[in-house]
């Protein structure tokens, strides 16, 4: 086992943001006075055999890093890589100052309850206005970005509204013109594939996520598909047909364990 002291010390000095089933997510700074960075630590699962566990963790970290790089090179809007310690299951990713699409659609962030009061809807509209986009435009951006990813033969494997973020307008002013406001994140289950079936499943997974997370989701998802269709061009025909046929099995490829 590698000496884990530096990365452990780094995690200890970072701020815990979320703790999922597989990963703890922190905010930190890697360099004195430097920009904030997100650290994703895939911690060990004690019930698994530890060598097997370590190699599975490593494979997920390596897979996520490679998928992000492939996206960057293909012009899919994703955050950059900043630090990799595969032996300890830690990935450092460019910090995105913004909110998840899930949150912007008024369903709170993963792990929290949706804003249930009657001002809820008004609050979402205000939030979207603060971000300078309409709900429709946001959905279209989502479709376009997924299409760019699929055109590069990258399948996300876990498309949900939590796994896409919108940059806050205040952080866009620091960037050169023409940079995307929407980013896709969480590539832990991503893989490369040119198969219609795999891309259709990716969309189907998102459709299900919309249905289970957002009330009255069908027109929203319709807008996503519009943006997707437009960007995909002639590749859409086969994928659209496959999506309509149904009987898609949402079983992520990359996942080795059950």
């Amino acid at each position, binding site marked *: 086992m590698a000496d884990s002291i530096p990365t452990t010390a780094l995690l200890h000095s970072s701020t815990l943001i979320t703790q999922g089933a597989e990963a703890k997510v922190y905010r930190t700074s890697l*360099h004195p006075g430097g920009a904030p960075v997100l650290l994703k630590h895939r911690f060990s699962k004690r019930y698994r055999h530890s060598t097997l566990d370590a190699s599975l963790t490593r494979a997920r970290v390596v897979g996520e890093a490679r998928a992000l790089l492939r996206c960057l090179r293909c012009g899919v809007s994703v955050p950059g890589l900043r630090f990799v310690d595969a032996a300890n299951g830690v990935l450092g990713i460019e910090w995105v100052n913004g909110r998840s699409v899930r949150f912007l659609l008024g369903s709170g962030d993963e792990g929290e309850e949706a804003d249930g009061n009657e001002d809820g809807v008004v609050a979402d509209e205000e939030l979207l206005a603060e971000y300078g986009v309409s709900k429709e435009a946001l959905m279209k951006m989502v479709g376009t970005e997924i299409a760019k990813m699929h055109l590069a033969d990258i399948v996300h494997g876990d498309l949900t509204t939590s796994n896409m973020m919108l940059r806050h307008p205040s952080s866009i002013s620091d960037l*050169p013109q023409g940079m995307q406001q929407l980013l896709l994140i969480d590539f832990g289950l991503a893989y490369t594939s040119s198969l219609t079936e795999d891309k259709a499943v990716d969309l189907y997974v998102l459709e299900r996520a919309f249905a289970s997370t957002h009330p009255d989701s069908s027109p929203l998802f319709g807008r996503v598909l519009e943006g997707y269709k437009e960007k995909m061009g002639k590749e859409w025909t086969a994928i659209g047909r496959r999506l309509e046929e149904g009987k898609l099995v949402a079983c992520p490829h990359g996942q080795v364990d059950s």
Partner: protein
Amino acid sequence: MESFAYPHFSSTVHVALFVHVTNAAKLKARIVRASTLEGTEGQVEREAVNFAFVDARLVTSVLHIQTAITQALLAAAQNTLRTKTVHSEVIWALNPSNNITEALRRYGVSDDTTALLVIRIDPLNPSGVKSRMSAAVEGTQVPMSQLASLTDWVSVKKYNKLNVDPVIREAQNNPAREHHLIDNIVVSLVAMKSVAA
């Protein structure tokens, strides 16, 4: 010279940027000779050039070099260095291939180098680093913030094989955007060097 503290690596790293460098050929010969000299003379010479000398024109941002430094520090702490020293590891991390000779040829000092980043990584944080840097390099020290203005984007694209990337081709007519995208890709490449495909 600027110093960066990395408490989790128990290290302070010193970095200086020199332009109008006039002794690159001599410096290169001196580094080669120091490695073979014996006795105290050898020790003194090795300490005099105990730095990572990096061609500054191939570095796109302060973050780019800092990322190479932290990945090298991590490899040193985990005993997984691919090269002999933490200084050569910085240079290895900057080059996309696994060939250290190629990395040194491209990113190290060559006879016609005119802009150098000089880096000292040492957990013992020895004194006199600044004066030894100035003694080794004949040139003008400038603030690190001038790095971006020195970058040779054509060579950066070539060495990192970015010319075929769709995103870079698309951004050709917008230099600010192109440079931003290139910087993000090369920083990412350095960060993931240890697990590159």
